[in-house]
């Protein structure tokens, strides 16, 4: 693995860590269970702060995903392979980005989605996240 790929890998895991943590912080659980009381983790109990952090890492993740996608297709002309687990992870990340992007659109003024769609997005985003964590843990 060359240096550029190593850097990408580190960036991906850092992004995955913070986006997951800040994503779970959107639920009112970290203050309840004193996790936000731990030194350095107070931001997990601040909804607006964790929301912004989640967004920042979502932007990084979408940039990384676009890079990896195009890089893969360009490199595929040289017979680059992807494993089944890789396909599954790519699908889940695509699902996370699509549902997350739609949730971002939802957060602008206006009511573009029905409440049923919003609930579907909330739940599917969480399910995709759990799937990605499971696959990453299985590596």
């Amino acid at each position, binding site marked *: 693995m060359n240096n550029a790929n190593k850097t990408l890998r580190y960036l991906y895991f850092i992004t995955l860590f913070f986006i997951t943590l800040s994503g779970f912080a*959107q*639920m*009112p*659980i970290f*203050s*309840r*269970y*004193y996790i936000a009381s731990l030194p350095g983790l107070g931001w997990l109990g601040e*909804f*607006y702060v964790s*929301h*912004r952090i989640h*967004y*920042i890492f*979502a*932007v*990084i993740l*979408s*940039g*990384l*995903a*676009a*890079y*990896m*996608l*195009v*890089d893969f*297709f*360009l*490199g595929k*002309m*040289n017979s680059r392979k992807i494993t089944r687990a890789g396909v599954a992870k790519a699908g889940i990340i695509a699902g996370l980005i699509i549902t997350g*992007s739609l949730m*971002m*659109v*939802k*957060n*602008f*003024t*206006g*009511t*573009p*989605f029905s*409440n049923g769609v*919003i*609930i579907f997005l*909330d739940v599917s985003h969480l399910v995709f996240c759990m799937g990605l964590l499971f696959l990453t843990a299985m590596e």
Partner: protein
Amino acid sequence: MTNKISRRAFLKGSITAAGSVAATTSIARAAKSITKKETQPLATLIDISKCVGCEECVYACQEANAPKHPKPEKPFPKMYPSATVPVADWSGKQDVTDRLTPYNWLFIQHANLTINGEEIELNIPRRCMHCSNPPCVKLCPWGSAKQEDNGLSRIDSDLCLGGAKCKTVCPWDIPQRQTGTGLYLDLLPALAGNGVMYKCDRCYDKLEKGETPACIEACPEEVQTIGPRDGILKQARKLAKEMNGYIYGEHENGGTLTIYVSPVPFDQLAASVETGDGKPHLTEVKDMMADGNNIAKAMLVAPLAGVAAAVGKFYKYSKEDDNE
């Protein structure tokens, strides 16, 4: 990346990259068109100078919304950790009218001021401001809080788990919790949730039937006027001009669907009213969703940057190959 890339491969790669860019741009355009969807929000004008503080609106609200009020099951389940999950029980204090509670979604806030040596008392009907872009709705993790097509927001008591995030993110701390009721009782009552959050739903059920919200209907002084926001704002500005008064709610939290007009500046009112839990302030509020939404706009650029970086890398390698 291997170093065997022909000009043809590069051309094919460029087409792929261009396709990705086009797809990303289409998504961005689609997202933009969705966010631009125009609806005519329903707003209320509250002329503070007219309110005599008779509380007719308060009792009308309680009566009209009594079927929606909580009916908690007792004893409440033990919740853990008890220090961070306090029991909120208003079932024995349903007659409280001097603050917001799960049973009282509207109250009259009093302000005593001295203006030009003259002592005056103003009465301010207070309830949910119904933000144009309500954080309670947008940041609820389960979609329990919802915004109707007319822009008014409400909390679905069948879905709410009582985590109170809506109250924490509300600039006025409006929603009020009742323990011992709602969906959490059927899930993990000891470990997650703590009842249901309640607030003014602007009598959505009456509005659906073409009726007027109970508080407006009951007011003997015609303090409130309801209508499309644009018209209400025009009316508020005209009224403010006539009384040499001031407006609150036009820009607060990016704009709300409750527009107050007062004969005295709101900073003076804000300093005069009693505030605290269930007694919201009247100070200026910045747009709480703005920072997040500004970051969200970068989502339109980030994929393009990723694509550009990948294409740049590919171009660099192909050029190196050509030079060999």
